[in-house]
C-alpha cells in the first residue's frame, strides 16, 4: 500500500498538541543565563554616551555588552554573501542605521532581572534626520547591485510599439506596504559553548546556513558549530537567514562563560528579523480589440536599508504569466534609514501578482471582456522568456475553480450584484510560483530490528516535513510508515538547503527517496551477518539537466466573493474557491493546510496587514499583534481548495513543484478585483481598508 498521495495526519501533531514537541527555546539546558537585547530609540545617528553602571550593579546581572566592550567579530557579509545574507548589527561601533537596532545585550541569571537591568542603561545619542519612507527619497532609486533571479531588468520586443498598437491601454501605479512576518514562535537562540565548540538551539529555516554564517562571524571553523532545531513555529522567510540575535547569543555566552538563552520579543520582531519591503509598482498594459496583449510593462521600486540590499522581485512573474510579444520589466531599490528587508512568503510574487493581476482585470474591464476569458485569450503555452514549461495545468485550474465557484453567475457590471445593504463582488486572478530545487543529501539506515531510520538535516516549519519524508521513505523501502522513523533538524545530519522558496520537498524528497532505494539495493545483497548491524546508505542529489531545458512553475487560480457593506464600507471575504496545479501532491491533508494558510494570509495582506513607520522618527508605530492586524477566525470564510494532480518528472524524481508559497500569490489581486466588481472602486494601494471605499 502506497503512502504517498494519502492524507495521513501529521506524525508530529500529537506531540505539538500535548506540548511535548521541543522547540528551540524549550530546550532544557542547565545553568542557562538569560540575555535581552537593548535597541536604539533613534533611527539614524550614533551613540554619544552609554552608561552601564546602574545596570551592572543590579543583582543577578552577569554582563552588559555594548560597542564599548563587545568582542570584535565579522558583522559584514561572508563568503555566501549576496541576497542570501544580511549584514548584522553586532555592537561593533556606535553607529545607528535604523530604529530599534541592537545597541547592547544584558545577561542575567533570570529573564526578569535581565529585562529590568536593560531598562537602566542610560543612552545618549547624536541624532540625525532619518529618511523613513522611500517616497521621501525616490530620486535615489537605483538598479540593485545583486539580484538572485537572473537580471533585474529584462525585456523582449518593444513595449512602446506594443502600446501604439493597442486598442485599449492603461498605465497605473500599485503599491504594497511594509509587512512583518510575525510567526507565532518568535525568533530565539540558546547558545552553549563546550570549550571552543558551539552548539546553537536556534529557531531557523536553515540549520546549515546558520552554522556557516555564525562560524564566519565568530571566526571559527564550521565543524566547531552545531545547530539543532527540531521544530519551528513558523518562519515565512524571516528565519531564512541568520540575524543579529543568534550571533549576539553566542557572543554573550562566551563572555559570561555560561549557556545563554536569548528570545526576541514581539516588539523586536518588527525590526530585528526583516520585513517584506514596501513596493511601488508602475504597470503599463495594452491589448487589441480582441483582448490580445500587445504590451506588458512592469517597473518595480522597493525599499531597502542604506547599509545593505534586498530586492523584492515583484516583476518576475510578469515575464512569463501571459503570452505577449512586447514585455519589459525592471527592478530598482531605494535605500533608507530602515532595517534590511528580507524574503517573506512568495517574495516578489505575493506583491507582484497583486499589481499585475489588478492591472489585467482593469484592462479586461476596459476591453469589456470577462476577466477569466481575457486571461485564457492570453494564455502562455510556453514561457515567453524562451523555454517550454515542464508542465502547466493552469487551464485546468481555471476551469475547475470557475465551475465550482459558479463564475458564470457573475454579471459583468460593477455594483450589479447585491444582497440587502451588501454589495456583492466576484473576482479572480492567476497564482504562480516557481518550482525551485537545490542539491540535498540524506542517509537511510536499516536497523537490526527490522525498522528503518532516515535522516536529513532539514527543517519542519510546521508544514509537514516529518510526515511527507516518512511517506516517501516508506514507499521507496516498500514498508508501512510505522516501520520508518525520519529525523531532521541537526547540522550533524546530511546537508540540505534552506527551507525557503517552497523547495524543501523538491530538494530533500528526491534525496530521501534515492537513499532509500540505495539502501534497498544494499539489503538485497547483504549477508545475514551484515544485517545484525546497521546498514547505511547515504546519497547526495544533483540538479537534473532538465532544469536548464525547461521553465518550471506551479500555477493556480483563486476565485473570491466579497461582500461590502454599502453604508459602512466594511469588507468581508465571503468564500474562496481556488485550484492549484503543483506537480505531485504527496499528502492531500498537509498540502491543503499549506494552500489554505497561504490564502488566509493573502486575505490579511489584501485587507489588513501594514507595518506603519512614523514618517518623522523612522520608528515603527505598529509594534504588537493588537495593532499589526493579521486575520482572526472571524475574517476567514470557507476556503475550498481543488488540487489538480500533475505528472511532471522533469522537475525531480518525485514529481513535486512545491506548495508552500503559491497560496498567497494571486489572491490579493482576486480580492481587489472582487472589491472593484462589488463597488466600482479600484483600490491600488494595499491594504484595502474601509476608508478607501467610503465617500
Amino acid at each position, binding site marked *: 500500500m502506497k503512502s504517498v498521495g494519502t492524507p495521513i495526519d501529521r506524525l508530529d501533531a500529537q506531540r505539538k498538541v500535548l506540548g511535548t514537541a521541543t522547540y528551540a527555546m524549550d530546550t532544557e539546558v542547565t545553568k542557562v543565563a538569560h540575555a535581552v537585547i537593548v535597541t536604539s*530609540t533613534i533611527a539614524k545617528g550614533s551613540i554619544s554616551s552609554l552608561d552601564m553602571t546602574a545596570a551592572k550593579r543590579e543583582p543577578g546581572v552577569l554582563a552588559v555588552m555594548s560597542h564599548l566592550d563587545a568582542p570584535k567579530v565579522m558583522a559584514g557579509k561572508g563568503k555566501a554573501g549576496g541576497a542570501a545574507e544580511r549584514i548584522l548589527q553586532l555592537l561593533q561601533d556606535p553607529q545607528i542605521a535604523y530604529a530599534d537596532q541592537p545597541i547592547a545585550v544584558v545577561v542575567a541569571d533570570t529573564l526578569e532581572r535581565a*529585562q529590568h537591568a536593560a531598562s537602566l542603561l542610560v543612552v545618549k545619542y547624536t541624532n540625525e534626520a532619518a529618511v523613513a519612507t522611500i517616497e521621501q527619497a525616490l530620486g535615489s532609486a537605483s538598479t540593485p547591485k545583486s539580484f538572485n533571479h537572473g537580471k533585474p531588468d529584462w525585456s523582449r520586443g518593444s513595449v512602446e510599439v506594443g502600446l501604439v498598437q493597442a486598442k485599449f491601454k492603461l498605465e497605473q501605479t500599485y503599491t504594497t506596504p511594509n509587512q512583518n512576518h510575525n510567526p507565532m514562535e518568535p525568533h530565539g537562540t540558546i547558545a552553549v559553548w563546550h570549550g571552543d565548540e558551539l552548539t546553537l538551539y536556534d529557531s531557523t529555516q536553515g540549520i546549515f546556513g546558520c552554522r556557516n554564517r555564525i562560524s564566519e562571524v565568530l571566526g571559527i571553523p564550521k565543524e566547531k558549530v552545531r545547530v539543532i532545531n527540531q521544530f519551528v513555529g513558523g518562519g515565512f522567510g524571516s528565519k531564512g537567514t541568520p540575524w543579529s540575535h543568534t550571533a549576539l547569543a553566542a557572543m554573550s555566552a562566551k563572555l559570561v562563560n555560561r549557556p545563554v538563552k536569548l528570545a526576541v520579543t514581539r516588539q523586536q520582531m518588527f525590526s530585528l528579523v526583516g520585513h517584506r519591503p514596501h513596493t511601488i509598482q508602475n504597470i503599463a498594459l495594452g491589448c487589441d480589440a480582441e483582448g490580445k496583449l500587445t504590451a506588458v510593462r512592469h517597473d518595480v521600486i522597493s525599499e531597502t536599508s542604506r547599509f545593505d540590499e534586498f530586492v523584492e522581485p515583484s516583476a518576475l512573474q510578469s515575464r512569463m504569466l501571459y503570452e505577449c510579444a512586447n514585455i519589459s520589466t525592471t527592478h530598482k531599490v531605494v535605500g533608507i534609514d530602515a532595517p534590511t528587508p528580507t524574503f517573506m512568503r512568495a517574495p516578489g510574487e505575493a506583491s507582484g501578482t497583486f499589481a499585475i493581476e489588478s492591472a489585467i482585470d482593469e484592462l479586461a474591464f476596459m476591453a469589456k471582456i470577462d476577466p477569466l476569458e481575457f486571461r485564457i485569450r492570453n494564455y502562455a503555452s510556453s514561457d515567453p522568456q524562451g523555454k517550454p514549461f515542464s508542465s502547466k495545468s493552469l487551464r485546468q485550474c481555471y476551469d475547475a475553480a470557475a465551475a465550482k465557484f459558479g463564475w458564470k453567475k457573475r454579471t459583468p457590471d460593477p455594483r450589479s450584484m447585491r444582497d440587502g445593504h451588501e454589495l456583492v463582488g466576484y473576482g479572480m486572478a492567476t497564482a504562480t510560483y516557481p518550482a525551485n530545487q537545490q542539491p540535498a543529501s540524506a542517509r537511510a539506515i536499516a536497523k537490526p530490528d527490522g525498522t528503518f531510520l532516515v535522516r536529513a538535516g532539514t527543517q519542519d516549519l510546521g508544514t509537514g516535513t516529518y510526515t511527507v519524508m516518512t511517506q516517501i521513505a516508506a514507499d521507496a523501502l516498500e514498508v508501512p510508515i510505522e516501520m520508518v522513523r525520519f529525523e531532521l533538524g541537526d547540522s550533524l545530519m546530511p546537508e540540505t538547503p534552506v527551507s525557503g522558496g517552497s523547495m524543501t520537498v523538491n530538494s530533500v524528497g528526491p534525496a530521501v527517496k534515492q537513499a532509500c532505494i540505495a539502501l534497498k539495493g544494499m539489503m538485497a545483497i547483504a549477508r545475514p551477518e551484515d544485517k545484525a548491524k546497521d546498514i547505511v546508505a547515504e546519497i547526495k542529489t544533483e540538479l537534473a539537466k532538465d532544469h536548464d531545458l525547461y521553465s518550471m512553475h506551479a500555477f493556480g487560480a483563486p476565485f473570491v466573493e466579497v461582500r461590502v457593506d454599502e*453604508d*459602512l464600507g466594511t469588507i468581508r471575504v465571503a468564500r474562496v474557491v481556488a485550484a492549484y496545479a503543483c506537480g505531485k501532491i504527496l499528502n492531500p491533508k498537509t498540502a491543503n493546510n499549506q494552500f489554505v494558510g497561504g490564502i488566509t494570509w493573502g486575505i490579511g495582506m489584501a485587507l489588513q496587514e501594514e507595518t506603519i513607520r512614523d514618517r518623522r522618527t523612522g520608528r515603527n*508605530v505598529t509594534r504588537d499583534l493588537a*495593532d499589526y*492586524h493579521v486575520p482572526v477566525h472571524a*475574517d476567514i470564510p470557507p476556503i475550498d481548495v481543488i488540487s489538480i494532480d500533475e505528472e511532471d518528472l522533469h522537475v525531480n524524481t518525485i514529481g513535486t513543484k512545491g506548495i508552500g508559497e503559491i497560496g498567497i500569490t494571486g489572491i490579493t489581486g482576486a480580492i481587489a478585483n472582487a472589491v472593484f466588481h462589488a463597488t466600482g472602486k479600484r483600490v491600488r494601494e494595499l491594504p484595502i*481598508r474601509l476608508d478607501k471605499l467610503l465617500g
Partner: protein
Amino acid sequence: MNPFSYLRPTTEKEAFAALSQPDTMALAGGTTLVDLMRLEIMRPLHVVDITGLPLGKIETGVSSITIGALATNSDVAYHPDVVAKLPALADAIRAGASGQIRNMATTSGNLLQRTRCPYFRDASSPCNKRSPGSGCAALEGFTRMNAIVGTSKDCIAAHPSDMSVALVALDASVHLRSTSGERSVKVGDFYTLPANHPNVESVIQPGELVVSVEVPITPLAATSRYVKVRDRWSYAFALAAAAVALDVQGGTIKAASVVLGGVGTKPWREPAVEQALIGKPATQEVFVSAANLALATPDVRPDNAFKVGLAKRVVARALGLVAGGSK
C-alpha cells in the same frame, strides 16, 4: 519590568491599607496592567491584587442590575439578565478584545483600561499622558486610531472601551468606596477630558476602589443596541461605534440615547442627535438626518478624517437596528 511588591489581601480593610501607599496599583484581571508593566509604560512599586475580595457578583434587582467590580467581561456579556434587559451592554462587551481576554478582564478593569494610542505604548515617544509635560507624539503622527472629539492640544488619545460606551448610553453609575465612605458617579461623568492634564482620566481618587457598576432596567435599555466598525471582524478596537436606544410609542420617538465610541477621548454622548430624534417618527430618513448632527466640530487629522462620516453612518445603522428590532 520594574521590581515591585505584590500583596493579595482578602479583606477590604487590608486592601485599603495597602492601596494607601504611594506608587500603588490595584491588579484585577491584569490584561492592561501586566501588559503595560511589561512594556515599562507603568512602573508601580506596589501591586495590590484585589481578586481575593468578594466583588464578583452580578445581582438583578427590581429596577437595576448591579455588576460587581470583579465580574469578568465574559460573565457579564453572557449573563441572561444582561442579555435580555441590557442588550447593548452584552453586545458591546462581546465586540471587545478576544475571548481569552474577556475571560480574564473585569468590569472595573474594563472601565479603567488605558488608551491604545501607539505613542502612549512606546516608552521612547513623548506622551503627556505617560509623562506629563513631555509632549504629544500623536498630534502630527499616525492617528488612524486616535480621537476626533474631546481632544486637546496635549492629547488626542481615544478611549478604548466598548463596554463604557454602552454603560453611558444606559445611564449606569459607578459605585466607589474608600476608607472615608462610598459615593456614586454616573459613568457619563466618571471620565474626564484630557485638557492640559491627560494623565488624569477619571474622577477616581487615590485610595478609592470601584466596587460595582449599577445599570437601570428601563424599557429604553431593553431596546438598546451596540454597533461597532473596525479593521477586522474580531479583536480590534473601534474605528467608530455607537450604543443607541429608542423608546418608540405609536411610531413616535419618545426618548433616545445615542453615545459614540472610537471617536472620543471618552465615551461621547450626542445630545444634539438625541434631541433631533425625540418627537419624530421612527423612520430611516429621520435616523440619517439626526445622525448627521453628530460630531459637529470634529478635530480631525489626515489619517482619521474619515471617522466623521463613518460614525454618522454607524449611528444611523444602529438606530435602524433598534427600530427594526433585529440585526
